[in-house]
C-alpha cells in the first residue's frame, strides 16, 4: 500500500543575508513499506525526523529525492489531482486536538473531510454516525459543542473525522501526547480496534515507549535515518541501541527481562501486563490460590498542621454552576514534593490556580504562609513573590527577542537593581542546565525541550520558595522528561524549594514524589504516600479495569497477579522490590 525508497528531505534555515545557518528536520535515505492492515509504530526522540516523515505520507511536504508510492500513486511528482487522491486514502491525526478540529459542533467536524471529497448530503449523516460509533462516541454526541469536550474526546472526534472519509490508512502524529493515561489508552484501544475490525493500516508516530507494544512492526528513527526496524522481539533486545537513539525500553519489557533473569519465566513474546500475568500463571500454577483477596489499604493521612505552608480549608469552587472542587482539605508543608493527579476535568488545574489567588472563590479559605489568598483584603503581591507558577506548555508564553531578555523579565519586575536582576537571570539559566551560549539566541531557534527549560528559568529567576507546575512533562520525549525531572528534583533537594506538581507520568511520581494527592470528581480521593494512594484509586474505582491504566506499570502487574490469586504485596511500585515480591510469593 505504501512503498518508500531512498527518501531524502532537507530544510534549511537562512539568516537575513540568505546564508545557510542551520539544517533541521532532515531525512536521509529512508526505506519504508506498509501493507494493507499493518500496524506500524515509528518512534524517535524530538527532532529525529519522525514528524517530517509523517507529513510526507500525507503530501503536506514534498521530498527532494526518492520514490514515494501510496496506493500506486506517485506522491513526489504527482499532480494536484494525484495528491487529492492520496489524501483521500491516507488520513492524518495530529498532536493537538485544538489545532485540527474545524467545526464547532461534533457532527460538523466529523463531516468536514467527507464534504470535501464530495460525498452527497444524504450519505453524509450515515458516515458521521458510523464514524462516531467506530471511535466509541455515541450518536448523542453529534450535536455537542467541541469546546465542551475533554482532550480525549476531541482526539476521538479527530479520528472519526478521518474515518468518515473511509481511508485505507491512518497516520497518527503523536496523537496521544497531550492526554492523560486513561484517555491515552482509550484512544490506543480505539486505534487497535479500527486496525483489527476495519482493516485500516495504522502508522503511529510516538515517543511513549509503551505504545510501541501494541504495534506489529516498529521503526526507530534517529537523526533522520531509520536506526532500527523490526518486530518487538528484535527491537527490545537491542537496549544499547535504543539508548543511543535517545529512547528507553518500555517498563513492562524491563520487568519481563528481570523476571527472566531471575528464572521465573520464559522470555519470549510477552509484551503486555496481561500476557505477563498469564505467563507467570502458566509456569507457576501452584502459587495461585483461590482464596487470595486484596490487602486492606491503610492510608496515613497527613495531618493538617497549622504552621504548614499551603493550607486548603474545606474549599469549594464552582464555575457556571458546575461544581469543580468540593470540600478540598489538605495542607502542604515546606520542603515537600507533592504530586496532584486525576483525570481530565477533575479540577487539578483549578486547584493550582487557587494557590496564588489567580481565581477566587468567596467564603473559602486558602492559606499560603499564613495569609488567606481568598480574602480580598490580603496583600497578594507578597504571597505571589514566594510562588513560582509554571503553567501548562510554558514555552507558549515566551515573548522576548532572546533567551536572556525573557528570563530577566521577572526579576526586573520585582524592583531589584539591574545588576541583581541580571545575576538572577544568569543563575536561573544555569540551574535549568542550559549553556551560556544561548543567552542571545532568539527563542524560536530552540528545540521544544529547551524552550520549556527557558520558560522554567524565567520562573526560577524570581527565586520562589514554592514551585507550582501544571503538567511540566507533557509533550516531552523520554530524554526531555528525564531532564525536567532531574531539574525539579535538584530544586527540591538542593535549593529546598517546595514542589506542587500536576502530572500524569505515574512512573516518575513513585520515583520522586513524597506524596500524592488524587482528585476524583473535584474531591480528594486519596492523600498520602504514592503507592497507598494508587492502591486506593484502584480499590475505589467504579471501572477497575480502566483505572489500572492510571497506575504505575509495576502496580498494574502486581494487582492483576493478586486478583488471579498470587499472594504478592501490591503496594510496591519500585521495579526491583516488585520483582522480589513476586519471587517471594511464588516460592
Amino acid at each position, binding site marked *: 500500500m505504501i512503498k518508500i525508497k531512498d527518501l531524502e528531505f532537507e530544510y534549511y534555515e537562512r539568516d537575513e543575508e540568505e546564508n545557510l545557518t542551520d539544517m533541521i528536520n532532515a531525512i536521509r535515505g529512508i526505506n519504508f513499506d506498509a501493507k494493507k492492515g499493518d500496524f506500524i509504530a515509528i518512534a524517535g526522540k524530538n527532532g529525529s525526523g519522525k514528524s517530517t516523515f509523517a507529513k510526507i505520507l500525507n503530501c503536506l511536504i514534498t521530498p527532494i529525492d526518492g520514490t514515494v508510492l501510496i496506493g500506486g500513486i506517485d506522491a513526489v511528482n504527482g499532480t494536484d489531482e494525484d495528491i487529492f487522491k492520496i489524501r483521500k486514502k491516507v488520513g492524518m491525526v495530529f498532536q493537538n486536538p485544538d489545532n485540527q478540529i474545524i467545526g464547532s459542533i461534533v457532527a460538523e467536524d466529523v463531516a468536514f473531510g467527507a464534504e470535501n471529497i464530495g460525498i452527497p448530503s444524504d450519505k453524509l449523516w450515515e458516515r458521521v454516525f458510523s464514524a462516531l460509533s467506530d471511535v466509541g462516541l455515541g450518536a448523542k454526541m453529534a450535536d455537542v459543542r467541541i*469546546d465542551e469536550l475533554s482532550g480525549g474526546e476531541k482526539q476521538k472526534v479527530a479520528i472519526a473525522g478521518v474515518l468518515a472519509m473511509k481511508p485505507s490508512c491512518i497516520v497518527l502524529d503523536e496523537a496521544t501526547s497531550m492526554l492523560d493515561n486513561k484517555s491515552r489508552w482509550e484512544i490506543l484501544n480505539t486505534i487497535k480496534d479500527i486496525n483489527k475490525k476495519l482493516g485500516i493500516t495504522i502508522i503511529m508516530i510516538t515517543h511513549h515507549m509503551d505504545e510501541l507494544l501494541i504495534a506489529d512492526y516498529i521503526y526507530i528513527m534517529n537523526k533522520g535515518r531509520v536506526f532500527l526496524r523490526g518486530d518487538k522481539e528484535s527491537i527490545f533486545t537491542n537496549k544499547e541501541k535504543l539508548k543511543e537513539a535517545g529512547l528507553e525500553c518500555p517498563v513492562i519489557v524491563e520487568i519481563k527481562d528481570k523476571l527472566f533473569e531471575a528464572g521465573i519465566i520464559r522470555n519470549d513474546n510477552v509484551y503486555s501486563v496481561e500476557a505477563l500475568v498469564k505467563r507467570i500463571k502458566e509456569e507457576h500454577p501452584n502459587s495461585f490460590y483461590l482464596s487470595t483477596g486484596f490487602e486492606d489499604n491503610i492510608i496515613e493521612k497527613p495531618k493538617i498542621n497549622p504552621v504548614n505552608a499551603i493550607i486548603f480549608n474545606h474549599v469549594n469552587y464552582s464555575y457556571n454552576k458546575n461544581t469543580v472542587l468540593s470540600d478540598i482539605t489538605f495542607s502542604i508543608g515546606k520542603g515537600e514534593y507533592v504530586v496532584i493527579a486525576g483525570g481530565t476535568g477533575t479540577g487539578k488545574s483549578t486547584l493550582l490556580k487557587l494557590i496564588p489567588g489567580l481565581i477566587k472563590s468567596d467564603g473559602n479559605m486558602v492559606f499560603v504562609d499564613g495569609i488567606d489568598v481568598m480574602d480580598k483584603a490580603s496583600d497578594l503581591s507578597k504571597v*505571589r513573590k514566594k510562588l513560582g507558577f509554571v503553567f501548562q506548555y510554558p514555552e507558549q508564553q515566551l515573548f522576548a527577542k532572546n533567551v536572556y531578555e525573557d528570563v530577566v523579565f521577572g526579576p526586573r519586575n520585582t524592583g531589584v537593581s539591574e545588576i541583581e536582576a541580571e545575576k538572577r537571570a544568569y543563575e536561573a539559566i544555569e540551574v535549568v542546565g542550559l549553556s551560556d551560549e544561548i543567552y542571545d539566541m532568539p527563542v524560536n531557534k530552540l528545540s521544544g525541550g529547551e524552550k520549556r527549560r527557558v520558560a522554567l528559568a524565567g520562573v526560577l529567576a524570581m527565586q520562589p520558595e514554592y514551585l507550582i507546575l501544571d503538567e511540566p512533562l507533557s509533550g516531552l520525549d523520554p530524554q526531555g522528561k528525564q531532564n525536567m525531572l532531574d531539574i525539579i528534583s535538584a530544586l527540591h533537594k538542593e535549593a529546598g524549594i517546595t514542589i506542587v506538581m500536576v502530572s500524569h507520568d505515574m512512573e516518575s511520581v513513585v520515583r520522586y514524589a513524597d506524596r500524592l494527592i488524587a482528585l476524583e470528581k473535584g474531591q480528594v480521593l486519596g492523600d498520602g504516600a504514592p503507592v497507598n494512594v494508587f492502591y486506593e484509586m484502584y480499590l475505589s474505582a467504579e471501572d477497575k479495569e480502566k483505572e489500572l491504566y492510571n497506575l504505575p506499570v509495576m502496580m498494574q502487574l502486581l494487582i492483576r497477579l493478586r486478583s488471579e490469586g498470587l499472594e504478592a504485596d501490591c503496594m510496591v511500585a519500585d521495579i526491583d522490590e516488585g520483582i522480589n515480591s513476586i519471587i517471594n510469593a511464588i516460592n
Partner: protein
Amino acid sequence: MLRDITVGQFYSVKSPVHELDPRVKIRFVLTFIILSILDRNIYLYGLLTIVFMAALIMSNVPVKHILRGMRGIILFILLCSMINVFTVYGEELFKIGSLTITSEGIIKAVYVFWRMLLIIFMSSLLMYTTTPTELTDGLEKCFAIKGNVAMGITIALRFIPVLMEELDRIMKAQEMRGACFDKGGPVRRIKSLRTVIIPLFQNSIDKAKCLADAMDSRCYRGGKNRTKLRPLKYEKTDYIVYMILLVLLIVGMYFIIKF
C-alpha cells in the same frame, strides 16, 4: 473573567429557532436592525421588543446565559448612551457643575440605549442559535461571499473560545512573573501588554499553520466540489417566518411613517 464572554458562541439545544434556515435568520435579523435604526418611537420599539421576546422564548436559550455573556457590553452601551444626557440641547432640568441635563437628552439616551440593546440582543440570538458553519453557509448565499472567505469566518468564530482561554492563561502566567496590567502609567501598561500580545500572536500563527495542514490533509480545496452536511433547503416553517418578516416590515414602516 475572560472565559465568561460567550458572544458568538453557539448554544446547543433543540428549538424551532435553531431549526430555521440560516438565510431566514440572517435576513430577519438584518431587517430587524435596519428598522430599529430608521426611526425611534415607542410603538416601533415596542413592536421590535415583542418580536425579540417571542424569538427568545422560542429559542430555548436561557436568558441567564445571554445576560452573563453580555454584562460588560450592557455597561458599555449604558455609558455611551449616557453621553446623550449631557450633550443634547433642550429644556434644562438641572445642572451638575458645568454639565446641563435636559429632558430631551434623557429621552434620547433612553432610546439610544434601547436601540443598542435590541440590536445586540437580536444579533447575539442569531449567534446562539446558528452554528458558525450554518451561519457562514447562510452569509455565503445571502451576500454572495466566496466559499473560502466564508470558511475563514467559520474558523474565526470557532477559535474565539480557544484564543480566549489562551489569553487568560498567558496573562496569568505573566502576572505571576510580576507583570501588571492594571497599575502604573500607560507606558508600563503597554509594556506589560506586550508580554501577552506577542506570545498570543506567535501561538495563533503556529495554530494557523497546524490548522492549514489539518485542512489540507482532509482534502480541503477551497470549496471546490464540496458537499454540505446540512444543505440549505427551505422548509414550511421557513416560508412562514418569511411571511412574519414581511408583516413586521409593513407594520414597522407604518409606525415609522405614522408617528
